[in-house]
Structures are given as C-alpha cells and as structure tokens.
C-alpha cells in the first residue's frame, strides 16, 4: 500500500498544505496572515518542482489503487498545469484579500482543496474517482464563488453555480449509472474494451451523453454554458480565474481521457454532434461577447468561445488534436491569469468591472497596459503569441482529420468567423487602454512585487509559447500519447 501512496504524493502534499494553512491561521497575527498566501504559493512552487523529480516521474504510466488512478503523461501534464494555476491564483488571492473581508485563510485552503480535486481528476481512470474528485472541485467552488458574503453578486453567483452545478452533477451521476449498467464496470479499462460492442445500445449512449453533458457543463460548452457569465461576473476574481482556467481544464482532461482514449469509437460516431457543439459554442461565446462592457463577463463569454475552439481538438480525434488542446490550454492559463489580475488591479476601487476603467491605463501603468494588451492580442489569436500558435495547432489538427469535407469546412469557417468577431471585441479592449478619453481614475496603479513577478512570468510565457514553440510542442506531444488516441 505504501508503494501505492507514492503515486498520490503530490495530492497528499497539497491537502496537507491546505490543512496547514487552516491551522496556521489560528496562530498567526492579522498582519502576517496576509503573507500566508505567498507562503502557500511558495510551498506549491516546491510541489511543482517536486513533480519533476526523477523518483516521481519514474512512476509514469503506472496505475494504482486497482487501476482507478493512472499516472501517465497526460495526468502529469495536467497536474503541473493545475499546480501552476493554483500558484498564480494564490498570489492573486493575496492581492484580493482586502476585498474578501473575512476568512482569507479559509479561502486559500479551499483553493488548495479544489486543487487537490483537480489533480485527482487528471489521474482518474475510473468513474468513481472521476465523480468524487469532480465533486471535490465543484463543492469547494460553491464556497469559493460565494465567498464574498457581503456582496449580493457573489451570493447570487454562488447560488446559481450551486443549483446548476448540482443539476449537472445529477446528470453526470445518472449517466455513470447507466454506463455502469451496460458496461458492467466503472473502470475505464473495462469500458474501453467493451464499448465497441455497446455502440448500438441506447442505454449506453444515453449514459455517455449524460456524462458528456456533465463535462460540457464544466467547460461551459453550448448548450450548457448559461451559468458561466453570471458566475464569472459575481465570483471573487481569483475564483473566476481558477474557475475559468482550472475548472475548465479539469473538464478537458476528462473529455480527452474519456472521449479520446476510453470510447474512441463512440467519439467517431458522435463527430457530427461534437462539431455542432463546438461550432455553436464558438458562435455563442463570440457573438454574445460583442456588446459586452463588463470585463469579467466579457472574458466569460470569450471563455465559452475558447471552449469551442478547444473542442475542435476533441473533434480531431488524434494525438495532434490532443496536443493542440494542451498547448492551447497552457497559453490560455497565462493569458487569463494576466488578464484577470490586471482587471482586478484596475477596477480595485470601482463599483464593477466596466471597460471604461481601462481608459488611461497606459498612463497609470504602462506595464499593466502592455501586459493586458498582450493578453488580448494573444486571445485574439494573432501571432507571434501563444494564442495564435494554439489556434494554429487546433485548426491544423481538424484540417488534417478530413480536408475537403464540407462539414469540417463549416466548422473551420465558423472558427474563422469567430476569431474575426473576437478580434473586434479584443481590439475594443486595446482601444480602451490606449486611445480612449475621459479616464475615470488617473492615479498610478500600485502593484505588489509577487504580482509583478506573476505578470512578468505570464508575459514571458505568452511570448515563449508563441515564439519558441519547439520544446513545448514536444512536451504536449509526449503528454498527448495516451492509449487509443494514436489512431
């Protein structure tokens, strides 16, 4: 059993860290409590480094706990991804602490618990682990979203997420039940062998569709996207970041594992449905973002659109497609963290997150202005930034799947249309930063140095992923080599 525990050493460390934070809160004075977030972030950084340790990476491609926990390249990639996200979010939370009013340490701890859930999710090789870890994420997020109890928006967002999240969980669970009934097991390995014979069974299809709906909810894909704008807007901004990056990535790791590796034949059969979902998601997100003036809401809609682009990688059903998703998510992580952090800094003293707060930002802080513009350009998919290369890989993977098929062309056309529409509103952000008049606030923005480091890292990463993609692509390709995807 001890041998098995070392598979989950990172998760254990994270949970332990969470408990430590909760305990430390009791012994720390008000002033030092603020820096608890930095300590936790530093500790997570250590964990992140430990994930590269030979003793740990040697376990790769191993399974534990009767095969319900799998540590392969994909899992490893996502664990590191989530760790990085959480580090950034923790640093971010310290920035945000003053607006939380109470229970900062608990907030940090819940982030860590959600992180552990995400890390388990990336290794889930069984429906039971999938369910439990996903619920661990969701339930903690209910709390994280509604953490600003004094703000009506936060509470409202929490309730909406709670009810809709529970509905989606119910669908997920019901789907799992049906799949279990047909396949006779909750284990992915069993289902993988059995699923080809079950393609004719309506109960199985029903079940898988319910599972898909549960995951589509996580990534905010059409038609399960309605919650995202309200929740993103109402939640405390660090939560929003974590939700937009971490929770979405958790949905994708499961989609990749399930639809890429466990039931590839079914994915093939459902290509049409996936394409339609992807296309509608892109359209819905981008079109609704057009008239949007609240920045967090804008990024929520853009997040919906990005989920659509990412689904293209699932549609491609190839190692390349998976690698493209990973690449895109990595770029998305840095861009969104930067964007949300800056939005928070800029609207710190404001009522809401209206785009007009960006006016004059290039005078208030050229660094923030540049970083946010860079993030917007990257999200718009313009070279030489991370967002472009990710979209490039996604499009390439879809084109490679079937070039010349009208359906795929329609998807590509929608993607192009979506990108053009998105350029319009991202450009609006840049315009607001650089050449709009009547700035409501003109005082320079003060930035804490850890925030500065995080933003600097984001800029560097956005540029690195765009300019020198050679190594990252190799990493993504290696991580994407999971069973049955190599079709």
């Amino acid at each position, binding site marked *: 059993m001890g041998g098995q525990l070392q598979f989950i050493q990172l998760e254990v460390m994270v949970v332990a860290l969470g408990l430590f934070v909760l305990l430390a809160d009791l012994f720390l004075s008000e002033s030092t409590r603020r820096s608890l977030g930095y300590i936790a972030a530093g500790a997570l950084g250590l964990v992140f480094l430990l994930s590269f340790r030979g003793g740990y990476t040697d376990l790769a491609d191993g399974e534990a706990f009767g095969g319900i926990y799998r540590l392969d390249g994909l899992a490893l990639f996502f664990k590191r991804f989530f760790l990085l996200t959480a580090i950034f979010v923790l640093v971010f939370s310290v920035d945000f602490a003053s607006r939380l009013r109470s229970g900062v340490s608990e907030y940090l701890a819940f982030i860590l618990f959600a992180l552990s859930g995400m890390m388990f999710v990336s290794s889930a090789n069984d429906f039971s682990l999938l369910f439990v870890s996903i619920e661990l994420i969701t339930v903690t997020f209910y709390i994280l979203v509604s953490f600003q109890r004094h703000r009506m928006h936060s509470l409202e967002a929490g309730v909406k997420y709670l009810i809709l999240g529970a509905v989606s969980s119910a669908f997920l669970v019901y789907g799992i039940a049906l799949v279990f009934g047909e396949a006779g097991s909750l284990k992915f390995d069993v289902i993988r062998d059995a699923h080809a014979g079950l393609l004719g069974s309506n109960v199985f299809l*029903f079940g898988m569709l*319910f599972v898909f*709906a549960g995951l589509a909810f996580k990534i905010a894909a059409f*038609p399960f996207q309605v919650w995202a704008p309200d929740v993103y807007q109402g939640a405390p901004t660090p939560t929003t970041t974590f939700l937009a990056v971490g929770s979405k990535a958790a949905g994708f790791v499961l989609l990749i594992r399930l639809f890429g590796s466990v039931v590839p034949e079914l994915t093939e059969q459902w290509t049409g449905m996936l394409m339609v979902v992807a296309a509608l998601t892109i359209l819905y997100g981008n079109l609704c973002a057009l008239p949007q003036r609240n920045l967090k809401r804008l990024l929520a809609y853009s997040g919906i659109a990005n989920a659509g682009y990412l689904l293209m990688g699932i549609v491609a059903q190839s190692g390349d497609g998976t690698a493209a998703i990973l690449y895109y998510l990595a770029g998305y992580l840095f861009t969104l963290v930067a964007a949300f952090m800056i939005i928070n800094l800029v609207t710190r003293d404001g009522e809401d997150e209206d785009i007009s707060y960006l006016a004059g930002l290039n005078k208030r802080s050229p660094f923030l202005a540049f970083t946010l513009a860079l993030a917007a350009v990257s999200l718009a998919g313009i070279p030489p930034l991370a967002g472009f290369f990710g979209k490039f890989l996604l499009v390439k993977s879809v084109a490679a799947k079937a070039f010349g098929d009208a359906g795929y062309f329609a998807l590509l056309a929608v993607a192009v249309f979506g990108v053009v529409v998105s350029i319009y509103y991202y450009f609006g952000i840049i315009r607001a930063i650089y050449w709009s008049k009547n700035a409501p606030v003109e005082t320079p923005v003060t930035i804490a140095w850890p925030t500065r480091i995080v933003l600097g890292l984001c800029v560097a990463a956005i540029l690195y992923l765009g300019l020198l993609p050679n190594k990252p692509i190799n990493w993504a390709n290696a991580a994407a080599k999971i069973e049955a995807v190599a079709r």
Partner: protein
Amino acid sequence: MNIAAWLILLLPLFSAVVIGLGAFRSRKVSAAISVGAVVGSFLLTLLLIRAGGELRTSVTWLEFEGLQIDIGLQIDTLSKLMLCVVTGIGGLIHIFSLGYMKEDMDFSRYFAFLSLFVFSMIGIVLADNFVMMFIFWELVGISSYLLIGFWFDKSSAADAAKKAFLTNRVGDFGFLIGILMVWAALGSVGFADLSNALSGETAAVTGLAGFLIFCGAMGKSAQFPLHVWLPDAMEGPTPVSALIHAATMVAAGVYMLCRVFFLIDGTWAMEAIAWIGGLTSLMAALMAVQQDDIKRILAYSTLSQLGYMVMAVGLGSPDAAMFHLSTHASFKALLFLGAGSVIVALHHEQDIWKMGGLRDRMPRTYWTFFIGTMALCGVPLFSGFFSKEAIIDVALQSNLLLFLVAVFVALLTTFYMTRLFIVAFMGEPRSAQAKRAKESPALMTVPLLVLAVPSVLAGYYNAHAPNPLVLCASLVMLVFGMLVANTVYSGAKADPLPARFVWLAKAMRGRFWFDEMYQWLIDRVQENLAKLAEAIDRRVIAGLMVRGTHGTTELAGRVLRLTQTGNLKAYAFWFAIGMAALLVFTLS
C-alpha cells in the same frame, strides 16, 4: 553610324534630363542645351542621309518566349524624311522660341519640355516595332500635354491639356488593342518580322485590327471623331502649336499609317480610313471658315490638311501622304510661327478682327506669311501645290466622290486662308495694339525666312507632272476661292457672313457642336456610370454588405444575449432543453 542613330534619339533626352535636373537654374544654359541637342540631331540626320542606305539597330527592352520587345531604330527613306522634318523644323522652332518665350518666367522648363517632345517624336519616327512606337506614342502624348498646359495657371490651358490627353487616350486604346490583335495573329510586334510574316501566302491582318491601329492615328492626327482636342490645344505657346500641332505630332498618325501600310493594305480598314480622312478635311475646312482666332483658323486648316493625308493613305497612296506631310510641315510651321510673330507684336491679341494693316508694320512677317498662305492654298510652283495635286490625283484615280470632296476642300482652303490674310494683314489697323505693332526681332524672323525656303521649294524633290484634269479643277477652285474671299472681306470691318447665312455660319462657328455632344455624352454616360459605381460602392458594398454583415453580427450578439436572463429557473430550463436537443441529435 549606329552611334549616330542612337545619338539622334538620345541627344534630346539628354537635354531634357539635364535641364530637368538642373532645376531650371540658368536660362541661357538650358536654352543652349536644348537648341544644341535638336540641332545636333538635325546634323546627325543629315549625316545619315548623306551616308545613305538603311540601318537597323536595337537593344532588347523586355523579352519573353513568344514576345520580344525591343527598343530598336529603323532608319530607312521614310524615317529619314520624317527625321528631317522633325529635327529641321523642330530646330527652327526652338530658335524661334528663344525670342517668343524670352519674357516667360518658366523659360527653362519650356525648353526641357520641348526637348522631351523632340525625343519622343524621334522615338516614334525611328521605332522598329509596335510596342516601341506605342511607348513613344504615349510619351508624345504626355509631352504635348505638358506643353499645351504650359501656362497651367490659366484654367483654359489646363483644361485644354487635359482634353488633348484624354482624347488621345481614347485613340491609344484602339491602338493598343490593334497591336494585341496583330501580335496574336502574327506572333511578333516588330515591323520587319511582321512584314516577313505577311510576305508569304497569308493575307493581310483583319480589317478590325487595321482599323483599331488607325484609331491611334485618329487620336494623334486629330481625325474625326477625335478631332476636338486640336483647336483647344492652341492654348499652348504658339511655337508649340507650330511644332506639335502643325508640323510633327499631328503628323505622327499619318507617319504611323505609312509605316504599317503593309499591314492594312487590302483590308476594309482602308476604305474607312479614306472616308474618315475626307470627312475630316471637309468638316475642318468648313469650321475654319468662320473662326476669328488666328491660331484656330490655322488649327482647323491643319485638321483639314491632315484629313487629306489620311485620305491619301486610305486610298492606297502613302507616298502622296508623306509628300504632303513634309511640305505641309514646313509651310504650316511657317504660318504658325508667322502667327506667333503677329501675336507677340500685338501683345497676345489673337482675334483677326483686331488686326489689320500689318503689312507695313511687319514686312518680314507679312512676306513670309504670304508665302505660307500661297503654299497652303496650292498656288502653282509653291510646295503645297505639288503635294496637294498628288493627293487629289490619287482621289481621282480611285474614288470620285472623295475627289469631289477634296476639290471642294481646296476651294474652302483658299477661301479661308485668303480671308485670314486679308483681314489680318491688309486694310487699316482695327485696334490700338495693331497700330502700335512692330516687327519681331531677328531671333524670330530668321526662322521665318529660313522656313520660307522649303515652303517654296520642298515640292520639287518629288514633283510630278500634274494630271490636267486635276490641275484644271484645282486652279479653278483657287481662283474662285480667292476672288470670293477678296470681294467679301476686302475692307470689311466685321465678318459679313453670319448676317447672310445665319444657321450655316452658326454651325461653322459652333464647330458643328461636337464638343457639346461629347460633353453631353460624357455627362450622361461616363459620369452616370461613375455615379452608379460610387453609389453601389457606398450603399451596396460598403453599406449593405459590409455594414450589413457587421450590423447583423452585432444584432445576433444582442439577441443571443437575451437568453442570459439571469433567472436560475430559465437556466435550468435551457439546460434541460439542451440536453433534449443533444439526445435527439445523437440518438436519432
């Protein structure tokens, strides 16, 4: 010899470039370079003529498989004759200009443009292929544009220049298409190659190609219906009118037709050319009868004479056309320069009714103008006589109707030239300027005197014994015309014709309203088309399509956003609907 040939072409270019780059600093240097260049070219031409024989030399400009475009010089009898005209008369006009333009602030610019023109014109003359000819054709067009619009501050000059250029462009359009057709049919653009290709059993190219090529000549030589620009072009300085719009550029069309005669010979285009030539000569002569501006009368006269030449080509006799071209060049240049001398003396007064009595005040101008008039009217033994006889003779041989037209035009020519001569030079001065007029300086009169020589003698190099019938007809017309004009205008203070032939005179004065018709056509067709295109651009493409797409997209966003009601129950409802839709989609 090759070097000499290239120098003839390049000297004026060199002059133009040097003066242009010198940025119009020293007037004297500019003038000296320009005059030197054209005189140099003239001397080299004489050298070539002395050497005799034919010469061909070329460098490649553009080369593809199946299309080779050279800048090549073809020196044969035809081009030598034309070179003489261009550089010889051009040289005299340069010298005349020294005096005429003395006062002008843009003296140097003037000579730069003049040199540019000479260069382009020599290019046309020496061209050994269609594309090169087209290139220089365009360059001649542009230098003529620059010279007509030389006094560009004056709106009328600027408008005239624009009109000349655009009218020429219409002709060039036909020319270009014609060249393309010839090339497609025969696989080359070089005159020598084309001639070889045609020498076999193949017939000439199509009449359409021939006619299209003629369109180019129609523009440059101001043939009906593209004649409208020439009278307006008189807005340019008078030496320019003499050089470009009497002696050389307008003759380029005729020259070109002679050059490519082997191509069009035997097609239906010939007939069209002949008729257009005849029609132009008749119409222009009629218009000339009722003009009052001395330069305009000469301009219409030029039109009419060009019509003669074109008609001669159309009737199958390029030799007669070239003959008339060369004699006409000298006496018409003489007439224009004489007119220029008068205009300068009268401080830029051009209305003949404000002249009169210049005989005594400007004797040298008077006598040389007299010689020019005689030559133009075709008084026997003057140069114009022989060449005109030759053309009328050709007409008689091949087309009786055109013969009658030609004879009638001869009558009109005599009439309006006598009118001009009597009104401007004889009788009493009718204005203060005319009273104060003094003879022009030697710089201007010497070229007149020099030009008078070929005006008398040029006919003899190609003189034939005239056909008796032609001789009779033209002599009768000559005498009749002079007599009538003399009775009508001798001592007249104003033109009596408008009172007697109201409508006819009006039509003649109104130039048969071609300008108005074209203006109407341009307004109605061109402007409306442009308006339509712009409206489509603004309303349909930029409006409906672009703004429409943008608007629809934005509207779609606003509508889709309405699903985001904020109501939790509605969200749950969408969730269920979405689920149901997916179920239907995947399971059906």
